[in-house]
């Protein structure tokens, strides 16, 4: 019997495949394509304390094997989420993870408090490249990562996942700061900061000038970071960045990820997360693995 279960810092998932924040709305759209109960977990669009309109359009640019986005955390706010969006997701038998972003440490704490135990875990987004006020600023210095994690943890009634930015010199020291401050799990990577220019109009394609790079193009960077962080920390890791197939998911698990998230590729193949779950099963079957731990992190570095 195959067992795909995994424990993410206290959150039990029936399988390791979740959806990445911001690429999956609040689940409604993709629920028309398959039964959300099949998913390991749903991570919802990044929430802020108050509703946000986000940035001006254009908010997307395609790049080689990737895309830039500058949505800028458009969302209805944490209260509207609880009232109007969460009930729908609760109809499904899958954990819901709230991704939160704030302008101040206090805002993050308030949000954690408001969410209480109505969600199954909280993902701390300290790595959004698309908002001026906060986001990424919290995620690039060890002491501020430590500080925000430590503070939010006090208000957090559910497992706390800290989502790391790849736009740093040393991902390992950032990861260690989050772990030390009490993070139950880490997710990585958020988007790389990038830019594209339309040479005909001579304007940046994104109205916001810069945006976050995601998709297959970033996969080698993400796999490297997961590998480095997995060797250094003792908490579970949710790996993401460019996953488009079960082979990619297995690559992240071999690198040391306990679970994976599918982001950009949902746009290309709405059924991607489900096909990835099936693919992982076949891979395990073929290799006679019974549990994810039979191959998680098990690469033979030469």
């Amino acid at each position, binding site marked *: 019997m195959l067992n795909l279960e995994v424990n993410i810092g206290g959150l039990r998932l029936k399988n390791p495949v979740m959806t990445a924040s*911001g*690429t*999956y*709305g609040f689940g*409604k*759209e*993709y629920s*028309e*394509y398959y039964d959300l109960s099949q998913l390991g977990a749903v991570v919802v*669009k990044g929430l802020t304390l108050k509703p946000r*309109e*986000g*940035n*001006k*359009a*254009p*908010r*997307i*640019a*395609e790049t*080689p*094997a*990737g*895309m830039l*986005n500058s*949505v800028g955390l*458009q969302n209805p706010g944490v209260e509207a989420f609880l009232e109007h969006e969460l009930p729908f997701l609760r109809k499904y038998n899958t954990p819901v993870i709230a991704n939160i972003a704030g302008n101040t440490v206090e805002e993050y704490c308030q949000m954690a408090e408001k969410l209480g135990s109505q969600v199954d875990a909280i993902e701390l987004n300290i790595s959004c490249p698309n908002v001026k006020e906060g986001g990424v600023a919290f995620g690039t210095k060890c002491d501020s990562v430590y500080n925000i994690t430590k503070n939010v943890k006090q208000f957090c009634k559910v497992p706390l996942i800290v989502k790391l930015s790849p736009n740093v010199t040393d991902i390992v020291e950032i990861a260690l700061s989050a772990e030390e401050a009490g993070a139950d799990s880490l997710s990585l990577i958020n988007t790389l900061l990038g830019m594209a220019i339309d040479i005909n109009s001579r304007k940046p394609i994104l*109205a916001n000038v810069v945006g976050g790079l995601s*998709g*297959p193009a970033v996969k080698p960077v993400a796999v490297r970071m997961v590998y480095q962080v997995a060797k250094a920390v003792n908490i579970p890791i949710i790996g993401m960045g460019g996953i*488009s197939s079960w082979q990619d998911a297995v690559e992240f698990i071999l690198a040391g990820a306990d679970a994976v998230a599918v982001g*950009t590729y*949902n*746009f*290309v*193949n*709405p*059924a991607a997360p489900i096909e990835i779950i099936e693919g992982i099963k076949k891979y395990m079957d073929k290799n006679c693995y019974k549990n994810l731990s039979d191959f998680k992190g098990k690469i033979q570095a030469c």
Partner: protein
Amino acid sequence: MKNEICELIYNREIAKSTFEMAFRSENMAAAALPGQFVHLKVNEGLYPLLRRPISIHRIDKSSGVVAIIYHIMGQGTEELSKKQSGYIDVMGPLGNGFPIIEGKKCAVVGGGIGTAPLLEVAKNLSDCDAYLGFRNCTYKVEEFEKSCNKVYVTTEDGSVGYKGYITEQLEKYISEYDIVYTCGPKVMMKKVVDICASNNVECYISIEERMGCGIGACLVCACKIKEENGDWHYKKACKDGPVFNAKEVLFDA
């Protein structure tokens, strides 16, 4: 709903760098409304990565066939044009479509490739004229002639129909209409919206925003929509649109 791997029926050049493609899908043909779009994977593999949104041009419910018209703009549409046979991965029909309001005198006003989604609108209206503006080469005019009372055509170089912009024709007869449906370049649509506003004609426009998911999950296709109270907020071109009542749309973005 699902994305469907549809059999390609044809894919041919109907004007310079402009292609018509038809594919078979009973489900999509049955469900599709005028003004909705499909979201296409132009080839296999990761380059280009994202799907491309293209409006539905023709719906043949009896034979289960959907047709689109597209212009080669870049890598994605270029790849699409290379497809000769086989299958194509399609999500759709997506978006809201044009509201078909009967018992009114209507006009469809299209510019260039923006004429494509208007054919089904015209076909579904009993009293409709068409205003079709092109740069130099025209296409599908005869199809509109079948479904419309009058068809006005302009080209910028005057090679077919009137010389000039299609809005110049619309301006002449605008007072005849109750409702205008429009799709085309932003500058043209702005002009159409202005003409309708000045003449108190109801106007529906189909908006083009760059898209990611095409179904409302990623929020990249934001367009500014006015509220009753004068406020505005971002709505999703893919799911709340692409068709909006012209009164609601803030063009500044």
